[in-house]
């Protein structure tokens, strides 16, 4: 063993330069994994640091439409050291008399315990209690400066909320519970919940949530409390969240960004592996003579294999160290800029777990891609010294195969652990295996086509040389197609997913959105509301529907918590409505609507797309918790629902009898001429002070800002991966370089000009690139589809410009690199190359 190590060290000393590609490729792969791990760890640390404060407590229990019942509140008081109750809803604040100004605001009604954690900062500075105490019998409130200036208010001025007056005591410049800060639709306003009495804003059926923040005694396990809560109040519709989990409204963003980062990690890994494999093959091809000489001198196969294994191991360690540095240092240096891009708090630092993870990946990938070529080393026969035969071919011996299988199994296990999803990981590995098979077929087919096309090359020496090189038995054609195709396929998949993810985020931005959402229309107001708009020529359309909110608690009797994959439709509460007849424009995709006068057991119409993710069919049952009451209904029809137009989209429609007597309000969408929007807004809010009118223009701008940020982050991350991947492709161009160097020397000694040789090289790369590119295109689309649909739950459409740009760009980069590599031999005198060979 020491002999092998000594030989390895001695060899390395003179051959470090030949490991440049190996080092670069491995470093790229390890850096990708390390960077993904570091960003994830930074977000986790950020959440751990800020989570409780952002959440407003160690845990939060949310209720929709109602306050906690006495028994529920008693449980909270008994469990927590302190409890704070916050009421959250949207409303319009009104300032001024006749020429009133109205502005949408996110209202938080608080109690004396608020805030449990952190501080509220006011301008002018004063305690929150003092600000909310009010003046001269008028209750106090604080609001964000942007809202105050929109309403033209300064501290001391009065304004109206619903049917009650308040005095602005101070501007609200800082508050701790900002968990939904990035996702709210209006500036914040804080007042005392007790002071909402008489405002008419918290009536039965209006849209509000109550948030109970719990400060748990030290040492209390949040999960235990959660389990106990579920056990004690199984059908109450209570939703639990603790500081260890995500933040309100961020799950989908976190899920998708997380899935995309994971994909970038895997892509970096695969492309790095391709580069590592190409580098090792090229290195060993140059070592054949040396290995044969060693065998002549008496070195056994194991000694030779061990010497080469040691070299690979040492270079692997160097590559991993480089990768860790590349995946960590830029993040640390650019931490503030990256943190600003992320929609969540992040604390960048040196985290051992992601670094250890990246190290183990680097080791496994290097082992996987080098064991096969290394296994062939011991098959190199000394006869190679007298003739070009006796090189390594065929399958490795079984101990090598066993080792390769073990490494592959470990890698799959590690990837499953890393991604947290066995299905997707296995699908990715299966996809890679299928792609490799197709590429091998494409490579062989290219060889055969090149051989059969030799007749075309008569009188065209460049084409003859290119076809001969591609057709050569034992040449580098198949290996190059494999490496180039796998690299391009992976990068193409990244491009497809980036395109589709961005498209899905941008599709969330409304195109044909209504002018206004109107919330909290009371049942006794709906007729007057309709009548007021009916004769207005500026109103182009009005849709109104009863609005309740409910949580899907079971599907076919299986509790939602036990349904695998946690589809978004099961997370949080959903809008629920009822209708006797199908609302206008309804498209049923399965089943039939209930009779108009139906009064039997509850029936339900479900959104078709969401039904598909749940595996729901007509005849199945869904249980919804509405206002604490469990309603189990039979699904009798499925409907097509468009959620992305900011219009009304209800996942669930029930028959009217199912919701008879349930207190509720109405929601409406209103489309009007733009010039009349301001007039309509003033008119409606004056006539119905309790309703909330939301201009979608403002909401859309807010969504656009968040989406723009996420899209930019995704584009930057994908761009970095594509750039690094192209670097690896440059190395892949070096596959079979020694062979081409010899061809060049011989052809030039026979009188081939440099132009002919360059043309032949470009033709060769074009043929190989075509074979690799076609498979890579298909693999990219397939990979993009699989990740989009299986991991991210977004729609997939082939993004052709992206696909063609990535594949053509990759082939161009590899061809240019091949030309670069050929320039040396082309400019050298052929005699020197032939002498060097001998």
């Amino acid at each position, binding site marked *: 063993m020491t002999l092998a190590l000594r*030989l390895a060290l001695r060899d390395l000393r003179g051959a470090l330069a030949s490991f440049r590609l190996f080092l670069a490729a491995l470093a790229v792969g390890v850096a990708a994994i390390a960077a993904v791990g570091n960003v994830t760890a930074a977000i986790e640390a950020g959440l751990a640091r800020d989570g409780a404060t952002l959440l407003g407590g160690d845990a939060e229990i949310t209720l929709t439409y109602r306050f906690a019942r006495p028994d529920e509140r008693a449980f909270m008081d008994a469990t927590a050291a302190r409890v704070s109750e916050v009421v959250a809803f949207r409303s319009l604040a009104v300032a001024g008399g006749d020429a009133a100004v109205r502005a949408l605001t996110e209202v938080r009604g608080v109690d004396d315990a608020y805030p449990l954690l952190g501080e509220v900062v006011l301008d002018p500075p004063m305690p929150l209690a003092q600000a909310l105490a009010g003046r001269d019998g008028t209750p106090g409130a604080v609001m964000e400066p942007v809202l105050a200036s929109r309403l033209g208010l300064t501290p001391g001025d009065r304004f109206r909320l619903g049917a009650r007056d308040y005095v602005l005591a101070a501007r609200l410049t800082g508050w701790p519970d900002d968990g939904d800060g990035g996702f709210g639709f209006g500036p914040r306003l804080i007042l005392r919940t007790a002071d909402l009495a008489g405002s008419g804003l918290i009536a039965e059926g209006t849209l509000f949530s109550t948030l109970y923040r719990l400060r748990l005694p030290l040492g209390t396990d949040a999960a235990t409390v959660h389990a106990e809560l579920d056990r004690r109040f199984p059908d109450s519709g209570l939703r639990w969240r603790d500081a260890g989990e995500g933040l309100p409204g961020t799950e989908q963003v976190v899920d998708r960004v997380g899935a995309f980062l994971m994909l970038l990690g895997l892509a970096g890994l695969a492309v790095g592996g391709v580069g590592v494999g190409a580098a090792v093959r090229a290195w060993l091809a140059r070592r054949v003579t040396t290995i*044969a000489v060693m065998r002549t001198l008496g*070195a056994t196969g194991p000694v030779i294999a061990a010497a080469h294994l040691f070299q690979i191991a040492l270079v692997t360690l160097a590559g991993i160290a480089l990768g860790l540095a590349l995946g960590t240092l830029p993040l640390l240096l650019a931490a503030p800029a990256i943190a600003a891009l992320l929609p969540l708090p992040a604390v960048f630092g040196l985290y051992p777990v992601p670094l250890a993870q990246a190290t183990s990946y680097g080791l496994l990938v290097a082992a996987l891609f080098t064991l096969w070529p290394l296994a062939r080393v011991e098959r190199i026969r000394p006869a190679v010294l007298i003739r070009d035969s006796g090189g390594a071919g065929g399958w490795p011996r079984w101990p090598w195969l066993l080792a390769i299988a073990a490494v592959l199994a470990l890698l799959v296990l590690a990837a499953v652990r890393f991604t947290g999803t066995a299905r997707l990981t296995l699908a990715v590995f299966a996809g890679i295996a299928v792609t490799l098979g197709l590429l091998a077929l494409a490579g062989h087919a290219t060889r055969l086509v090149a051989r059969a096309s030799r007749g075309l090359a008569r009188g065209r020496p460049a084409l003859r040389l290119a076809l001969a090189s591609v057709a050569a038995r034992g040449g580098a054609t198949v290996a190059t197609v494999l490496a180039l195709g796998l690299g391009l396929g992976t990068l193409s998949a990244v491009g497809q997913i980036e395109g589709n993810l961005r498209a899905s985020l941008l599709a969330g931005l409304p195109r044909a959105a209504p002018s206004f959402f109107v919330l909290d229309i009371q049942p006794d107001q709906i007729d007057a509301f309709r009548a007021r708009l009916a004769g207005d020529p500026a109103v182009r359309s009005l849709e109104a529907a009863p609005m309740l909110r409910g949580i899907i608690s079971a599907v076919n009797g299986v509790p939602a918590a036990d349904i695998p994959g946690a589809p978004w439709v099961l997370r949080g509460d959903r809008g629920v409505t009822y209708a006797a007849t199908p609302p206008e424009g309804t498209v049923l995709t399965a089943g039939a609507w209930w009779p108009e006068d139906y009064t039997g057991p509850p029936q339900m119409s479900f959104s078709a797309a969401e039904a598909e993710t749940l595996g729901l069919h007509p005849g199945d049952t869904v249980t919804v918790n509405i206002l604490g009451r469990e309603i189990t209904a039979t699904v009798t029809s499925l409907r097509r629902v468009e959620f992305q137009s900011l219009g009304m989209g209800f996942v669930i429609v029930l028959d009217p009898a199912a919701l008879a007597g349930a207190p509720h309000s109405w929601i409406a969408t209103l489309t009007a001429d733009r010039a009349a929007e301001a007039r309509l807004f003033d008119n409606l809010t004056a006539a119905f002070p309790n309703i909330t009118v939301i201009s979608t223009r403002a909401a859309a701008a807010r969504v656009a800002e968040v989406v723009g940020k996420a899209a930019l982050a995704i584009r930057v991350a994908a761009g970095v991966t594509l750039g690094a991947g192209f670097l690896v492709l440059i190395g892949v161009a070096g596959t079979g370089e020694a062979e081409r160097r010899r061809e060049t020397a011989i052809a030039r000694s026979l009188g081939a000009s440099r132009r002919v040789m360059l043309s032949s090289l470009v033709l060769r790369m074009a043929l190989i690139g075509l074979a690799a590119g076609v498979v890579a295109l298909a693999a990219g689309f397939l990979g993009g589809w699989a990740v989009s649909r299986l991991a991210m739950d977004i729609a997939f459409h082939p993004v052709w410009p992206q696909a063609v740009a990535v594949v053509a760009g990759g082939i161009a980069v590899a061809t240019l690199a091949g030309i670069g590599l050929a320039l040396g031999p082309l400019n050298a005198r052929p005699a020197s190359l032939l002498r060097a060979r001998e």
Partner: protein
Amino acid sequence: MSDSPPEPAIMLRDVGLTLAGNAGPVDILHGITLDVARGEALGLVGPSGSGKSSLLMVMAGLEPPGRGSVTALGRDLGALSEDGRALFRRDHMGVVFQSFHLIPTLTALENVALPLELAHVGDAMSRARGELAAVGLAHRTGHYPAQLSGGEQGRVALARAAATRPELLLADEPTGSLDAASGQAVMDLLFDLRARHGATLVLVTHSPELAARCDRVVRIEDGRIVP
């Protein structure tokens, strides 16, 4: 009672070699039967492509014969695995190639030390230094092959082949790529080494002068021994 004759150093019996070519199998050697006595210097001569080098490779166990048997120092090489033959060469053989095949990433000293290290010789480096001095290259120990002249490379290859004091020395046209003066110097060294260590020498050569320095000359044509 009579003394049985000593066993030959190398014994070939009906050796044939066929290789796969692009246009089908090519017969390289046909039924070669040949003994090389211990301590003998045997010259193999013949035109290019006659099979001399292939015969030498078969004797060295570098190329397994398709038919017949090869026995070296009483060991049937055909019965040994690829690794077994490698170990046999390590312990008993030195081979010199026409193009020397020095390992480009190793210095002259390390090239010579390599077979000694493979044989687990403790003072490999100092012995290698002595071997290089014996071929007049004490001042070139730290040079890489690319930094040596053709003649110097040939001397390093000789020193490497002789380093383990092999009983069998096989050389394939070691002067073929050298000028007359360098070739003469290398051959003097080769015969000198053989004389000093009493090794059996098999030498493939085109040169009638070199062949004349051997104890016996065998002529090969078209893969057969001709009288």
